[in-house]
């Protein structure tokens, strides 16, 4: 259990161990790996958003010199329906298999229909051009309203809505329905003095990781295979690939590269099974790398949504009832982040009566993937926008309105359990005291504020701590480092062992050299893998005490560990000198062999995270362009192991959320073809677009972690959408409910208001 204590290295801003290689270009990412005799694999993708595949003719392509293998859906095993029991949006292994390579139907523009492996990239391109595919085009279903309409074109004729109170009698594009309720919603609204309601839409957006998906696969004649790839979870790559290809898990070794961003988008597989089948067919290693265009069209973005929120409140601001109707696009296969969106939407607030209804809806877009706090930014954008309007209507300060209804320890979350210690009120109070909250604004400027929430995850982790012969420390773990976690692991090992940070090195090992770890996601690694490292270091300390006791000829329970040394406990009558970790390590061969500590766990008690974001914007009345003048992110981190990395997470999430609010969206033509699949036209914010993001870390320790750690990676993206939108509302006097608030949309709203 967490308790106040003085730390020696926890909370310091040490240099990250992977930093030098990353800024000097030495670090190896997914596309950097090569093998002798390697072929280049490429994917033929559907030119249609919705079509049946009638015939694929690969004869001409196969005759091209330098082509070693061609595969289509016929080369992949049939995969039965089996739920992927990961988290939200996980879907079904049969769908995962057909998403990797289409069988009889394509369900989005860019869906893989064939692949080739050739001696050069140019030959692979020529082979793709020679493959002939005969399609029967079907009407594309490109938005929620169309997909949910009666008599809509069905994307999967065998899909019946799951979760409805009554068993459905006909198929639907609505894959699942979910409902949460408490109290009597009608009574709650009847008790209200004021009722507000709004409908909000968010677009399809991409995580925008800089590094495209890439892998090399190699399988030998005995069926043993190795995959080198960039991923957030190499154990998941192993298990998913084994399911999709019907292979034995033990026959697949996955070696993770450094990762150039993932944000949830690299928690699934796309290229790996394709490269594996090409390797098997060609007898050579096969490398595959997505282009940016392919990343946009064929990897998983975040759901577009339509959310209707209704809030009833007393004149003093007390919420009496809330309802939410939430529809999330899943893409061509079921499994959106609707459920966590529904669970998060009212999580920051105490509300006696509520009803939340969620819909998971198929459309002819790429199957969505996780994106930081999956589902929460969309639903909480809607709710936090409406709370802003309610505050204005009630003439209550928006922080005071939230404080009046805020959850704290003992409050029952809308999604079920009671919260333990949480820091939402502390974030609100910090926002109120922050100098940015009272800075004077100029003409056409406005200030907006919004709250964010994410559960944070625990799950399975394992770690080993090896003590080298000179007393230095190697930590071996299996969680890919996507946010500086090597440094955090080293800090925690150093703190436990009582040695300097610089004496600890961390290795992210592959599936054959590390114990099992769940994916790096859910803001779980510093919490859960960190807990495994702490326990493994504790294992080392216990062994060191035994070794010291044996050396001194006393019982082990008479030995303490302090500041990296074994010492006799106070009062023990032993004429001995303390033994340092280095001394014990140097003598380990004589006292029982090498020092190796290990721990594995299924971490429980991940501490929920809350945030408050404040945005100041200026809206150009002539162009509709929105400039962010100031942005302040305040977040409860529990305990910041490395404060600079926590601030980095807060700043990165803020920037992604600002992009979601202001510019980012997939733009489709009438045939369902994305028109802006590149960073020139899919406008993500860059440094010159933004001010420095101000941060303030709040520390309300998580009682379930030895140091009080909460996850910090996902909460930062939740609040910016509404914070920016509320600022635009304040600057213009107009509520524009649909994102992004791009210049054309804002200008149209300004002109409509004038008219």
């Amino acid at each position, binding site marked *: 259990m967490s308790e106040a204590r003085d730390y020696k290295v926890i909370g310091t801003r040490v240099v990250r161990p992977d930093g030098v290689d990353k800024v000097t270009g030495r670090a190896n990412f997914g596309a950097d790996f090569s093998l002798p005799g390697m072929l280049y694999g490429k994917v033929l993708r559907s030119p249609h958003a919705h079509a049946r595949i009638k015939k694929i003719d690969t004869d001409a392509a196969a005759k091209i010199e330098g082509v070693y293998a061609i595969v289509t859906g016929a080369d992949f095993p049939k995969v039965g329906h089996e739920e992927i029991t*990961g988290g939200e949006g996980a879907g079904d292994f049969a769908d995962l298999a057909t998403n990797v390579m289409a069988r009889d139907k394509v369900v989005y523009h860019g869906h893989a229909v064939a692949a080739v492996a050739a001696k050069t990239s140019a030959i692979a391109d020529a082979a793709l051009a020679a493959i002939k595919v005969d399609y029967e085009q079907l009407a594309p279903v490109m938005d929620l309203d169309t997909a949910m309409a009666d008599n809509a074109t069905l994307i999967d004729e065998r899909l019946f809505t799951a979760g409805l109170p009554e068993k459905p009698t006909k198929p639907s594009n609505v894959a699942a329905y979910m409902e949460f309720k408490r109290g009597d919603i009608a009574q709650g609204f009847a008790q209200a003095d004021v009722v507000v309601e709004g409908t909000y839409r968010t677009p399809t957006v991409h995580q925008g990781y800089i590094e495209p998906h890439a892998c090399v696969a190699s399988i030998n004649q005995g069926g043993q295979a190795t995959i080198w790839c960039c991923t957030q979870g190499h154990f998941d790559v192993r298990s998913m690939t084994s399911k999709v290809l019907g292979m034995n898990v033990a026959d697949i070794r996955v070696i993770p590269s450094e990762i150039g961003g993932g944000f*949830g988008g690299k928690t699934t597989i796309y290229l790996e099974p394709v490269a594996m089948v090409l390797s098997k067919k060609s007898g050579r290693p096969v490398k595959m790398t997505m282009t940016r265009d392919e990343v946009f069209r064929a990897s998983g973005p975040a759901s577009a949504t339509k959310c209707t929120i209704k809030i009833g409140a007393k004149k003093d601001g007390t919420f009496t009832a809330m309802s939410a109707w939430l529809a999330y696009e899943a893409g061509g296969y079921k499994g959106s982040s609707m*459920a966590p969106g529904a669970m998060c939407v009212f999580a920051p607030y105490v509300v006696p009566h509520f009803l939340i209804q969620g819909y998971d809806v198929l459309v002819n877009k790429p199957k969505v993937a996780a994106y930081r706090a999956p589902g929460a930014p969309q639903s909480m954008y809607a709710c936090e926008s409406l709370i802003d309007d309610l505050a204005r209507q009630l003439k209550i300060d928006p922080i005071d309105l939230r404080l009046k209804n805020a959850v704290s320890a003992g409050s029952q979350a809308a999604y*079920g359990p*009671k919260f333990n210690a949480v820091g939402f009120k502390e974030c609100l109070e910090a926002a109120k005291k922050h100098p940015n909250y009272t800075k004077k604004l100029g003409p056409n400027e406005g200030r907006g504020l919004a709250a964010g929430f994410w559960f944070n995850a625990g799950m399975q982790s394992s770690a080993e701590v090896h003590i080298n012969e000179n007393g230095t420390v190697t930590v071996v773990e299996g969680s890919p480092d996507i946010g500086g976690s090597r440094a955090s692991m080293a800090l925690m090992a150093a703190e436990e062992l009582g040695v300097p940070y610089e004496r600890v090195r961390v290795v992210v090992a592959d599936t054959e050299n590390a114990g099992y770890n769940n994916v790096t996601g*859910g803001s779980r690694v510093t919490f859960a893998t960190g807990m495994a490292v702490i326990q493994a270091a504790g294992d080392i300390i216990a062994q060191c005490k035994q070794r010291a006791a044996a050396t001194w000829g006393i019982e082990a329970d008479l030995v303490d560990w302090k500041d990296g040394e074994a010492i006799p406990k106070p009062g023990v009558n032993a004429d001995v000198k303390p033994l340092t970790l280095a001394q014990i390590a140097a003598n380990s061969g004589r006292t029982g062999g090498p020092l190796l500590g290990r721990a594995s766990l299924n971490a429980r*008690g*991940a501490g929920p995270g809350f945030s408050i974001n404040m945005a100041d914007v200026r809206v150009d009345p002539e162009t509709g362009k929105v400039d962010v003048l100031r942005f302040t992110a305040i977040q409860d981190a529990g305990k910041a192991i490395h404060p600079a990395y926590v601030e980095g997470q807060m700043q990165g999430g803020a920037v992604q959320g600002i992009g979601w609010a202001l510019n980012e969206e997939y733009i489709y033509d009438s045939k369902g073809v994305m028109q802006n699949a590149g960073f020139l036209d899919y406008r993500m914010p860059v440094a010159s677009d933004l001010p420095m993001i101000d941060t303030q870390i709040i520390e309300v320790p998580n009682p379930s972690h030895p140091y009080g750690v909460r996850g910090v990676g996902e909460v930062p993206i939740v609040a910016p959408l509404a914070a920016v939108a509320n600022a635009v509302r304040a600057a213009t006097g107009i509520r524009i409910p649909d994102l992004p608030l791009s210049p054309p949309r804002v200008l149209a709203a300004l002109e409509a208001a004038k008219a």
Partner: protein
Amino acid sequence: MARVFFPDHLMQLTAGVRELEVHAESFRDLVAEIERLYPGISKVLIGKVAVAIDGDIIHDPFLDPVGPNSEVYFLHRIEGG
């Protein structure tokens, strides 16, 4: 007796019961008791949903202790990004 709460989407398996009291010392025993009341439900409660015991969310619970005054909530599994 631990108090057990089911979300709306699981109430189809509990004949509409949202809340019940169960005597159990571990999650495994708790699910066994619920299975006795609602045959077949354990296929969903183990492996397909998460649980919060006294506020701590746990994926893949099994041997986790349940106290006499514990509050146990079944939840949709959350993994995150």
